[in-house]
């Protein structure tokens, strides 16, 4: 797979697209793709990610530029701009327990019909959701999540598209790489095929659509 430029990769994304962005408080986030989203002013985005990061960092840049119209995340408390936009109802925010969020994305990527979880039962999270009884216990049915695009950041990518991640920068990236129609990847290093040992590949190459060249 021949790497593309960040400009070409982001040009594929239309306004109004649903995007998943890997990262946890900006760690393991494809910063270059976010910079390019801002430069190309892709707006009315539906964003699915763990958190809103902080202004100036990671997905925080998308709130700085007011590009997000809908956000699904587990935590936005450390980004005052995202909070402000939510309170002013300029963005619709769906707050989801972090484990439920990652499992919903995994369900979307793995062809499952949803997630049955006790998390959220008896709290405001259960509102409007199907409840399913299994063996005398009650579970919420949380629906599967998918997106048009996933923007992924890896530590190593090879030219086939195999990915490995480093330390706590792995987080949501591997599940999101399974749950989007088009998967766009940046990596700290793009390496020749065979450099990543088979046992150390976390995201198999066939899941990746585009690798963005390092400059």
């Amino acid at each position, binding site marked *: 797979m021949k790497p593309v430029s960040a400009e070409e990769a982001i040009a594929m994304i239309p306004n109004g697209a649903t995007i998943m962005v890997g990262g946890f408080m900006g760690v393991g986030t494809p910063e270059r793709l976010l910079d390019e989203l801002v430069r190309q002013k892709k707006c009315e985005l539906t964003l699915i990610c763990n958190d809103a990061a902080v202004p100036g960092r990671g997905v925080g840049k998308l709130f700085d530029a007011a590009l997000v119209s809908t956000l699904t995340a587990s935590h936005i408390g450390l980004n005052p701009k995202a909070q402000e936009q939510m309170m002013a109802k300029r963005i619709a925010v769906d707050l989801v327990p*972090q484990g439920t969020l990652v499992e919903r994305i995994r369900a979307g990527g793995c062809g499952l019909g949803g997630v049955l979880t006790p998390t959220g039962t008896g709290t405001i999270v259960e509102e409007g959701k199907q409840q399913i009884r299994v063996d005398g216990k009650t579970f919420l049915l949380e629906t599967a999540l998918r997106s048009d695009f996933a923007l992924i950041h890896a530590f190593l990518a090879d030219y086939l598209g195999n990915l490995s991640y480093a330390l706590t920068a792995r987080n949501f990236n591997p599940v999101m790489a399974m749950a989007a129609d088009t998967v766009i990847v940046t990596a700290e290093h793009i390496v020749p095929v065979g450099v990543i040992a088979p046992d150390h590949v976390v995201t198999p190459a066939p899941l990746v659509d585009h690798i963005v060249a390092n400059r």
Partner: protein
Amino acid sequence: MDAQTLIARRVALELRSGDLVNLGIGIPTLVANYVPPELKVFFQSENGLIGTGPIPEQGMAHPLLTDAGGRPISALPGACTFDSAMSFGLIRGGHVNVTVLGGLQVDAEGHLANWMIPGKMVPGMGGAMDLVTGAKRVIVAMQHAAKGKSKIVQKCALPLTSSRPVDLVVTDLAVIGFPGGEITLLETAPGVSVAEVMAVTEADLSIPDKVPEMQI
């Protein structure tokens, strides 16, 4: 000893060798400082790490090794990393022996509210709902009262974090548990009387005949 240190030291006594422990932000984070080194506790950071170590020395941090707040941490020998699906598989699957979390309110049924104040603070629940629902043992570490108001209430006014009751509450004044489902004063802080605890507690505490003092 200040209130936070007292709470953290008392909570630390609850941990056992081999435990997988998840500490929330705030006071809970301090607990790690008071675990004796001979106790082999695994600390999990829910962003994808077991084996968190102390804050790295200046110049020895790495931007891809952080805690759940995005701040640099270190990893001990034998640490391991994983994705968020595994991290919450561990949490929701009951593999976390103890989670220690901050609280806004705990009520007489052991219900915890710690993630939002409607109309005022809506940061999102992060991993808190999963931790309270999934961990084997849930300990709340918090001040007993805030701005003169008891945080140990008869019934939570704030939105609950989980329908699953917590197991233990450690405050600067008391240790509170729920033996037989009844909210009970288990210990008082050094120099604090049972009457003093009752005076600043909204919930109807059950008081055993003998209430020992925290041993820390």
